[in-house]
């Protein structure tokens, strides 16, 4: 049979991320996919040469807008470990609250985009309408809707008042109720299942060997989530990873849906355990010589920061490995054998963030 080569992206009607795939297709069935990146590479790691270690928080927040809070947490934790800074408990738990709010709005954004990818416009609008409540919480508590910028080395720069806490708890209840109302549709609707069940299957073995991360890994049955490490305030709260086993687009979608509900529970737990105390420890001097390797769980999965200090205010090296970078090789394994029409849905199912990937 003749092979047709079809260029997919970097601009595509349902895919908002600039990734290009060269698809080799036989009779509408994808036989091979070769990726091409480089459309949004910014060289952010290199900025560590000219921005001091405090300023680099703002750079790390801009690796990815949707994951900005958790990038800042990961970088801050790395510097704090290198410098031996003890972060106050209140700051650690506040970081958990804003991290879980970030995870919620990221997953709601993705669930809407995913629904849009298979043409379910009303579901897309419902998820994005719910997401607005989380964005309002971010704006009211930090001053910004997306890049909240509350982290500093040693803690956080914003606090939650008792009135804000009561309001967040009432909003979280509403978000949970509204998300649950969509559960039957996103998990059981005939048209949703027709586009997601059995599509883009990634086996448990392949997910692990190909280095998948986050919902892509857990959707294939591997119970691994960096929050299990108990970093920062996560040591204070009960947490079990959400796992599905079918490894298809439906499983990855369901993991994110269930994690959205779980994040609401984690916000409640964190608020219940929010201690009184300082917001940030005093930080003096520069990071000493040494190296630190830190991992956190972002909405898209495991994020890794490696830093190397040299005793000055500039780092010798800042290396960032984002979850989408890890999920591209698994994506290349999902595509062969699928129908050409399913490619956008499968690509979206890893929740790609190419801005993160290329940095």
């Amino acid at each position: 049979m003749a092979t047709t080569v079809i260029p997919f992206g970097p601009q595509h009607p349902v895919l908002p991320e600039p990734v290009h795939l060269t698809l080799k297709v036989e009779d509408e069935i994808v036989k091979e996919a070769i990726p091409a990146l480089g459309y949004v590479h910014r060289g952010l790691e290199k900025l560590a040469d000219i921005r001091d270690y405090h300023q680099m928080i703002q750079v790390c927040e801009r690796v990815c807008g949707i994951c900005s809070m958790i990038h800042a947490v990961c970088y801050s934790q790395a510097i704090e470990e290198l410098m031996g800074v003890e972060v106050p408990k209140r700051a650690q738990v506040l970081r958990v609250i804003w991290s879980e709010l970030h995870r919620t709005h990221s997953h709601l954004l993705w669930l809407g985009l995913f629904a849009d990818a298979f043409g379910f416009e009303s579901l897309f609008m419902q998820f994005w309408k719910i997401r607005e409540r989380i964005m309002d919480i971010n704006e009211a508590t930090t001053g910004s809707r997306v890049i909240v910028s509350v982290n500093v080395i040693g803690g956080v720069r914003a606090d939650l008042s008792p009135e804000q806490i009561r309001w967040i708890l009432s909003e979280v209840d509403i978000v949970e109720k509204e998300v649950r109302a969509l559960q039957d549709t996103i998990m059981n609707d005939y048209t949703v299942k027709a586009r997601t069940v059995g599509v883009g299957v990634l086996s448990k073995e392949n997910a692990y060997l190909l280095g998948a991360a986050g919902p892509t890994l857990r959707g294939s049955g591997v119970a691994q989530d960096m929050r299990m490490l108990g970093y920062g305030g996560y040591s204070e709260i009960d947490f079990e990873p959400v796992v599905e086993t079918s490894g298809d687009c439906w499983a990855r979608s369901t993991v994110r849906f269930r994690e959205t509900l779980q994040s609401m529970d984690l916000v409640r737990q964190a608020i219940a355990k929010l201690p009184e105390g300082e917001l940030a420890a005093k930080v003096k001097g520069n990071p000493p010589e040494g190296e630190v390797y830190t991992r956190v769980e972002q909405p898209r999965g495991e994020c890794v920061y490696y830093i190397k200090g040299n005793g000055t205010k500039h780092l010798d090296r800042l290396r960032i490995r984002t979850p989408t970078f890890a999920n591209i090789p698994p994506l290349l394994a999902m595509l062969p054998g699928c129908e050409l029409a399913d490619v956008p849905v499968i690509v979206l199912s890893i929740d790609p963030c190419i801005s993160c990937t290329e940095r």
Partner: protein
Amino acid sequence: MIGKVIDVTVDNVVGEVMKMKNDGHRLVTFSTYQEGEDGLGILYHFDKELETTHLRMTVKRDAPIPSVSGVYFAALLVENEIRDQWDVKFDGLVLDFNRSLYLDPEVTQVPLVSNVKIEPKK
């Protein structure tokens, strides 16, 4: 502060990575850093049940580095990224973007090495 580190060399890195794979480790990624004037340090990060193990290798930037993408396919992207950023070559890379994963053809400065120029592509 980074946990367990095993030193490896260009002669045994592929074998050691294979051992990690056979032992059930997941390749997380590599990190790189400048080592002296013309050297490159590479840390291969592995995970097994949330425990981290690193392999550390120091190489000269002008000598080819054995690729481990034949052992872990996932290594192909990070090896291509290192190729872009440090102007090094990997022997046996399963898909070589030839220094174009991120970089445009007209780039003449090696991104992560000061004052080292590369020939622009035609």
